[in-house]
C-alpha cells in the first residue's frame, strides 16, 4: 500500500525523504564503483519490466480476485539488493509523478517501505539464506514466500507507524495494525508465489542469470544499525527545523490545541471516552511539532480555564472569553471563516478565468 501526502506530517515525510535519499545516494555510489557499465541499461529496463509486469494480472484461485507480480523481491533476486533498491525507487518515483500514487512528500515513505525492507532485509536475511546457494524448486518457493511475506509485513507495519506518528488520520494504532497486517499477509503470499514461479521459470530456462546475480551481490552492503542511526539523525534534523518553524509561527500548533482544549466542556458532555489527555496526545504529538514544554503548559492553563467555565455551562460566555484571547471557534469567527473561505475560493477561480481569458485574447 502506498502512503499518501494527505496523511503524513512534514516531520515524518521529511524524515523519510532524508532516509530514502541517503539510501539512494549510498546505492548509487555502490553501483557506480562496483558494477560494469552494462548494468546501467539493465537496471533501467528492469524498472520498465516491473511496470509492465505489474499490469498483467492473473486470477487467484478460489477468491476470484486478481494478483500481479510484486517488485522488490524479484528485483533483489535478479539484480542484487543495491540495484534492486534503486530500481524500486525509480518505479515509485514514476508512479508518484504520473499516477499520483502516494504523492511527492510521501515518496520517501514509499521508497523506504517498499524498497528497503524487501531489498535489504527480507532478501539477504531470508531469501538468500534459504535459496541463495542451493536454488532448488522447494528452496526457491519457501525462500520467496517467507521473504515476500516478511518484507510486506514490515512494510505494512512501517505504513502504520508513519500514519500514526503523523497524526493526521485518527485511526488508532491497534485498529490500523489489525487492518493492515492480515491484508498484507495475503498480498505477501501472492507476491511470494508469483516471485517463486517466475524465478523458477528463469532458473530452468537460463540458470546462468541467477548464478551471476547470486555471486555478484555481496550481503551486508548496508548495516541495519547505520540505517537506524540515519533515521534518528534525520528525525532530529527535520524535527528540529520544523519545530523551530512552528514555534516562530504561533497559529499552527497552539491554535489547534486550544481549539480542542477550548471545547473540553462540550466534549465531556458529548462523548466521555475522549479525555483531555488523549486529545493532547493526539494533537500535540508530532503533527504540530511542539513536542513538549511551552505547548503543554499552555494547554494546562487552558484546561483550568475551561473547567472554570465548563461547570456553569455558560458556553457563550466561555466562548466569548476564549475568542477574545484566541482566534478560535466562536460562531462569529466561524461564520466569517465560512464566508471568507468561499470568497477566497471564488477569487482564486476568478483569477484562473481571468488569466486564461487574457491568454486566449492576446
Amino acid at each position, binding site marked *: 500500500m502506498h502512503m499518501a501526502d494527505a496523511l503524513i506530517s512534514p516531520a515524518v515525510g521529511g524524515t523519510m525523504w532524508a532516509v530514502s535519499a541517503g539510501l539512494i545516494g549510498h546505492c548509487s555510489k555502490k553501483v557506480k564503483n562496483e558494477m560494469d557499465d552494462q548494468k546501467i541499461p539493465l537496471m533501467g529496463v528492469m524498472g520498465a519490466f516491473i511496470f509492465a509486469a505489474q*499490469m498483467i494480472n492473473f486470477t487467484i484461485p478460489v477468491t476470484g480476485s486478481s494478483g500481479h507480480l510484486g517488485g522488490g523481491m524479484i528485483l533483489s533476486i535478479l539484480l542484487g539488493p543495491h540495484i534492486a533498491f534503486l530500481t524500486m525507487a525509480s518505479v515509485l518515483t514514476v508512479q508518484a509523478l504520473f499516477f499520483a500514487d502516494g504523492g511527492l512528500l510521501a515518496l520517501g515513505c514509499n521508497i523506504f517501505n517498499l524498497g528497503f525492507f524487501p531489498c535489504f532485509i527480507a532478501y539477504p536475511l531470508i531469501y538468500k539464506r534459504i535459496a541463495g546457494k542451493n536454488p532448488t524448486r522447494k528452496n526457491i518457493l519457501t525462500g520467496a514466500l517467507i521473504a515476500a511475506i516478511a518484507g510486506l509485513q514490515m512494510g505494512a507495519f512501517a505504513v502504520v507507524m508513519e500514519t500514526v506518528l503523523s497524526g493526521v488520520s485518527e485511526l488508532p494504532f491497534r485498529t490500523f495494525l489489525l487492518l493492515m497486517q492480515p491484508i498484507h499477509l495475503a498480498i505477501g503470499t501472492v507476491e511470494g508465489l508469483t516471485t517463486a514461479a517466475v524465478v523458477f521459470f528463469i532458473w530452468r530456462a537460463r540458470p546462468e542469470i541467477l548464478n551471476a546475480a547470486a555471486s555478484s551481490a555481496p550481503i551486508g552492503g548496508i548495516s541495519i544499525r547505520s540505517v537506524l542511526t540515519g533515521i534518528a539523525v534525520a528525525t532530529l534534523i527535520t524535527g528540529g527545523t520544523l519545530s523551530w518553524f512552528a514555534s516562530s509561527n504561533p497559529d499552527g500548533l497552539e491554535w*489547534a490545541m486550544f481549539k480542542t482544549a477550548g471545547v473540553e466542556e462540550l466534549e465531556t458532555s458529548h462523548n466521555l471516552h475522549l479525555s483531555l489527555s488523549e486529545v493532547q496526545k493526539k494533537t500535540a504529538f508530532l503533527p504540530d511539532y511542539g513536542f513538549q514544554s511551552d505547548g503543554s503548559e499552555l494547554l494546562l492553563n487552558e484546561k483550568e480555564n475551561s473547567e472554570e467555565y465548563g461547570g456553569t455551562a455558560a458556553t457563550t460566555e466561555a466562548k466569548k472569553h476564549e475568542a477574545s484571547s484566541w482566534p478560535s471557534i466562536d460562531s462569529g469567527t466561524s461564520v466569517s471563516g465560512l464566508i471568507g473561505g468561499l*470568497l477566497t475560493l471564488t477569487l482564486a*477561480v476568478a483569477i484562473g478565468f481571468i*488569466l486564461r481569458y487574457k*491568454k486566449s485574447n492576446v
Partner: protein
Amino acid sequence: MANLQNNLFDIFYMDTLASGETWLHRLDPRAKVLTTLIFVGTVVSCGKYEISMLIPFTLYPVAIVALANLPVLYIIKKMTLLMPFAFFIGIFNPIMDRAVILKIDLTDIFVWMDSIGLNNLMGLIDIIGLKGIVGTIDVSGGWISFFSIMMRFCLTVGAALILICTTGFDSVCMALQKFGVPSPFIAQLMFLYRYMFVLIDEASRMVRARALRTFDTGHMKLDLFAPMIGQLLLRTLDRAQRIHLAMCCRGFDGHIHMVRKMDLGMSEILFTIGWFFAFVIFRMYNIPIGLGKFLSEIL
C-alpha cells in the same frame, strides 16, 4: 489489460501536454520542481484541523492550469480517480474523533445577512417557524480533519500532476540532476521512462496473443502467468544487452552526458520567490478568516 493500455495512453497524453508552448512550459524545470516542493511542504504543514487556511493555496494550481492551458476537466478527473484511497483512510476520522470543535450558528448567518440589508431574513424564518430547526450545526473534529485531508489530497496530487503536465518527465529528471541527485539514479529514471512504453507494448501484445488463443473470458492461471512473465523477463534481459551494445557502438563509457540548455533567468527567480512568499503568507495568516472578519466589519 484494458487498464494497461489506458495507463499508457494516459502517460502519452500527459507527455503531450508537457510539450506545450506557453511561457510556463518554457520556464526552467528547476524553478517548477522547487516551487512544487515548497507548495507540497507548506500545504502539508498546515494543522490537521485546518480547512480555511488551505483554501488560498488553490490559487497555485488554478493559476498554473490557466497559464499553461491545461485541460481543467482532465486534471479534475484524474484527481477524482485517485480519491478513494485518501477517502478510505480519512473517513475513519469522523468515526474516531467525535469531539465537537466547531459550532456553526446558522442564526448568526441570518443575523449577519440582515445586518448587511438582505431583507429581513430573520423575520422570514420566524414566520415559517424554522427558528427551532435552524439552530446550530455541530461539526466534530473528525469531519473537519476529514475535509482537511481531502483538501490536502487534492492540492498535493494536483501539484504533482501539474508539474508533470507543464514540465515533462525528462526535464524533471534534468532538474533533479542539477539539484544533486546522483547520476546513476537519473539514468535509471530516464531508462525506466523510455522503456516503459516499449515493454508495456510488448506485454500487451503477449496478453493479447494469449487471449486470442484461450477463448475464455480471460482468467489467467498462475501456471500460465509465470511462463508469460518469465518470457517477458527474458526478452527484457536480452533487450538490455542489445541496448548496451548500441550504446557502446556510440562511444558509451559508463556515463551518460547530455547537453541541455537550462538557464535560470529573471523569470525563474521571480516565479519561485513570488510563489514562495505567497505560500508563506497563506500559511502564516489565515486569509479567509481575516477576509471574512474584514467584510463583516465594513458591512
